[in-house]
């Protein structure tokens, strides 16, 4: 197994592993570490992890983060781009000074391994929830990149996590970044008085040259059919895959969902609405007029919460600002220092009896590992991730439909808007399903 890329066709896989169930549901297989006798705990008493998706962020951030955790052993890497999988495998072997990390191009083989406790999912967005669901149903804990693709996906994911008692982390660092944690704590503890307005700016994406968006032959060693998975078929183009998928609505939800999951998560956190959401959404967007990209390129969105707070989201920047009755706190760009309307606000101490928001200075990966052991929900669990993504998807639906929407956070449906409600889910290409 070691040093060999495992590749099987979907049909062959299903034939040869019927026990896994349709589209890789494998309920009878559980990681060794969760069974009774401690003698069956995985080797070296470490949490064994499979990394699914080892491209740019998947390798540079997620794979590397786990590689350097003392209580982790990465035992499998997987990517539909064979070269990327091999590269990650080579790094694992070099780091561990052994040959124990297997490499795959089909994630179902990773999920089928009973010696794997948890998986890190760093695929394009349209795969996040399907793979996470299969992993949870196979008895694994999951840390998965953000965002979801649809509102319905998030609901199914959150329910499944709860039913199976899984640990699920939405993989972003913001809640462990001191600046964002600090701003949220200052707001939650009333340092700026009653919160009134939240202002967020998100970057404007650039796309790729038109030449890269033309249909082209699929590169060797790239399993494009598997890359597409549940997404609608479209001819391969270099500008469609890897990093650029996020500007195409079939696979992602544009910059609003990409960077919105950072700054707007802090907004929801500070507003104490992380388990609900806004009640009104309206905005305008600019959509590309040429090329294969069709997510809103620039936008202005206004969200209104039940507590009267306004969340204003604009393209151009990575800033965050909270305005209250007694002052403001903000930061000018991603990870920039916190600023405030007065030094008193900026330097105030949060005392023991006040609200201390859940964080982990070690980051999202460390937080996940601690929770795998303690079974606590990580700081960005499925439900919070779902509620955040719902807000972002609702924003995109409002932009696409060009009208103001009203949202019921309890029933999780748009009020008096059949079309908007239709857009809470998307059909998946057979045989992939939630």
């Amino acid at each position, binding site marked *: 197994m070691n040093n060999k890329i495992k590749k099987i066709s979907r049909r062959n896989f299903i034939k040869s592993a019927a026990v896994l169930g349709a589209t890789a549901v494998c309920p009878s297989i559980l990681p060794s570490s*969760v069974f009774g006798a401690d003698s069956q705990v995985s080797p070296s008493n470490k949490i064994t992890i499979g990394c699914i998706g080892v491209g740019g962020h998947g390798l540079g951030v997620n794979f590397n983060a786990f590689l350097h955790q003392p209580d982790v052993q990465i035992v499998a890497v997987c990517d539909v781009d064979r070269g990327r999988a091999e590269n990650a495998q080579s790094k694992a072997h070099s780091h561990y000074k052994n040959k124990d990390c297997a490499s795959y191009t089909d994630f179902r083989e990773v999920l089928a391994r009973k010696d794997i406790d948890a998986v890190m999912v760093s695929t394009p967005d349209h795969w996040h929830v399907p793979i996470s669901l299969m992993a949870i149903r196979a008895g694994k804990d999951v840390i998965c990149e953000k965002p979801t693709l649809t509102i319905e996906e998030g609901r199914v994911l959150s329910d499944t996590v709860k039913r199976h008692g899984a640990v699920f982390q939405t993989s972003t660092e913001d809640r462990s970044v001191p600046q964002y944690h600090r701003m949220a704590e200052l707001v939650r503890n009333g340092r700026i008085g009653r919160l009134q307005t939240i202002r967020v700016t998100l970057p404007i994406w650039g796309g790729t040259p038109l030449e890269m968006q033309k249909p082209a032959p699929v590169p060797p060693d790239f399993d494009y059919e598997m890359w597409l998975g549940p997404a609608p078929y479209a001819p391969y183009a270099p500008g469609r895959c890897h990093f650029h998928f996020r500007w195409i609505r079939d696979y992602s939800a544009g910059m609003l969902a990409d960077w919105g999951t950072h700054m707007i998560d802090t907004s929801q956190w500070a507003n104490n609405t992380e388990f609900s959401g806004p009640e009104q959404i309206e905005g305008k967007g600019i959509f590309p007029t040429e090329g294969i990209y069709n997510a809103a390129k620039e936008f202005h969105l206004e969200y209104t919460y039940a507590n009267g707070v306004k969340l204003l989201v604009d393209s151009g920047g990575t800033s965050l600002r909270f305005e209250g009755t007694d002052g403001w706190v903000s930061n000018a760009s991603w990870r920039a220092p916190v600023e405030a309307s007065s030094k008193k606000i900026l330097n105030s101490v949060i005392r023991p009896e006040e609200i201390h928001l859940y964080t982990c200075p070690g980051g999202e990966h460390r937080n996940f590992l601690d929770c795998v052991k303690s079974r606590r929900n990580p700081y960005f669990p499925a439900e919070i991730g779902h509620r955040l993504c719902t807000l972002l998807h609702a924003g995109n639906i409002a932009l696409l439909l060009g009208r103001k929407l009203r949202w019921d956070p309890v029933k999780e449906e748009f009020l008096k808007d059949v079309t908007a409600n239709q857009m809470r889910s*998307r*059909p*998946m290409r*057979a045989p992939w*399903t939630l």
Partner: protein
Amino acid sequence: MKNIMLILSICCFALTALRSENDPYAELSAYDAGPQTIALSLIEKEFREGGPAVYEQVEARLLAVLSKPESTYACKKFICETLGIVGSKACIEPMLKLLADEKTADMARTALERLPGKSFDKALLNALKSSSDRIRIGIIQSLATRHNAGLAGVLKGYLGSGDLELIQSSLQALARVGGTDAVKVLTSVRLADEFQPLRERALVDAAFNLARTGSNRKALKMFEQEYKNGTSLPAIIGAFNGLIDYGKDTLPVLTGVLKNEHKALALAAVKTSMRLSDPAVTKILIDVFPSVKPAVQLAIVRALAEREDVAGLPVIKIALTSQDEGVKGEAIVALEKLGDVSVVNDLATLAVDGGNLSAAAQQTLSRVRGPDVNDTLTKLLDDPDPKKVRVAAMALKLRDENSIIPRLLKMVESEKADTRSLAIEVLDGFAGENEIPELIRLLNKGAGSSDSDKVASIIWKATRMIDKDDDRFIKLWSDVGNCPEPVKLAILPYANSAGGAGSRKIVTDTIASGSDAMRDRAVRVLFSWQNDQAVKSILDLLKSTSNARYKILGMQALVRILNDRKCTLQPKQKIETLEQVLPLMERPEDKQNVHNTIEKVKSGK
């Protein structure tokens, strides 16, 4: 917002202009998924701006394009996706045609699956009966997503087929459909062993869906059956959670699972307990704690902390003495939520010699709640063990317990170096604006000692809560101005960070009248000034000094400030300043530097 509106207006104008020349619907049929998508943009714009009033019209035009034999695959895909938004019953027949072809079946479902109405369900159900292979699986998925009540009966037949993929898809669909019929099928069906795990999982999911629609009693029956007779651990865990969520007498179930020898089940029970608010759950967790494995104990400690029920504190204290480092570590962290004054001494001891857990214990000491915690920590300042004193002092600082500051200020005057050092360390970033006079007194008293710079640092940080225009901030620099030279020497480096006229005056006064050492430090502070308020002072110094080194450094400082994007001086003022500097420079390279800067300002780059 204004920018967005402006750009939108421009785009609207451009798109309208294009529309007048090209009919997007005429162009659409030739769309090939390549870079040209102007037609798509225009059509989306039409229904976005027109709203529901134009949906019927857009649908009709899209269907007309779809009927053209030359319509490309990409064109059909776009049409189906758009019909999923604007479509009506009128698109059923054209979509059914696409559904019958394996190449276009999935795209047809984008409209058929999404659009509401019984006619869509009926059409899909009819299509299902005459379809096969992937098309059939896709239709099953769509009907399952629509929670079609009639699907279960059809799927029952499929479960008896020999088609592996069809059986698996049917089981998954039954899970999504839920409802009484789906549960009946899943309960009664006899499948090969290899399908049992999936059948059990589907049954549990279907039962959850059933419960959600109000049929709790039937769902509970399913959960009980699966919990007792299930063979698949994930399904059993799901059934257990179903029993907890919808059952009446759930606590015995919880207790039983917590004690289960399967660690996975026991851990699942602990996790479930974290979301149960019943106070009796705390007692159950406490009772089972001694009899379970360390991995489960660790999770129970966390569960008790999450419950924030002080009844759990005795168990956390026991866990604090565990031989298992993981359990012990979790107990330390748990005390942030559950701890009180009774754990302060234990935590202090752990913070002193807890090995890898020391930092966690110190952190928890800063968070433990309770009325007497600060008093107990303050008493520890008298402990004979200096390490414990340090731990207590640092905890009190992090707790923002200002009442110990006078004591710390006295400790700064101690004859014992260790005590002085600790007091200075704790006061740094802790003393506030009220302590500045006392700190200046201490600085005066110990002027020139090795601690002077550290005390000066404390003074600077003591201003952290007051703004630069605050009277107290202005008075600070006035007070410093009256201090002896060693005090000024210590404080001067902070003048730069402080900014403002008061601190700058101290610097310029020192340059004018201080000793050589003072003057040199003051000059360096002035040269590192962060904003253009220092421009005049630096220029004056350049004009008056004969020190060649000061001239070069001063010129470089001016060039830096004037080049800074934050510089508020007008280009004319910048040029005038630099032209005054130019004749003061002696070395050609320095003259060139100034000259280049003048040119740069003139060019506006």
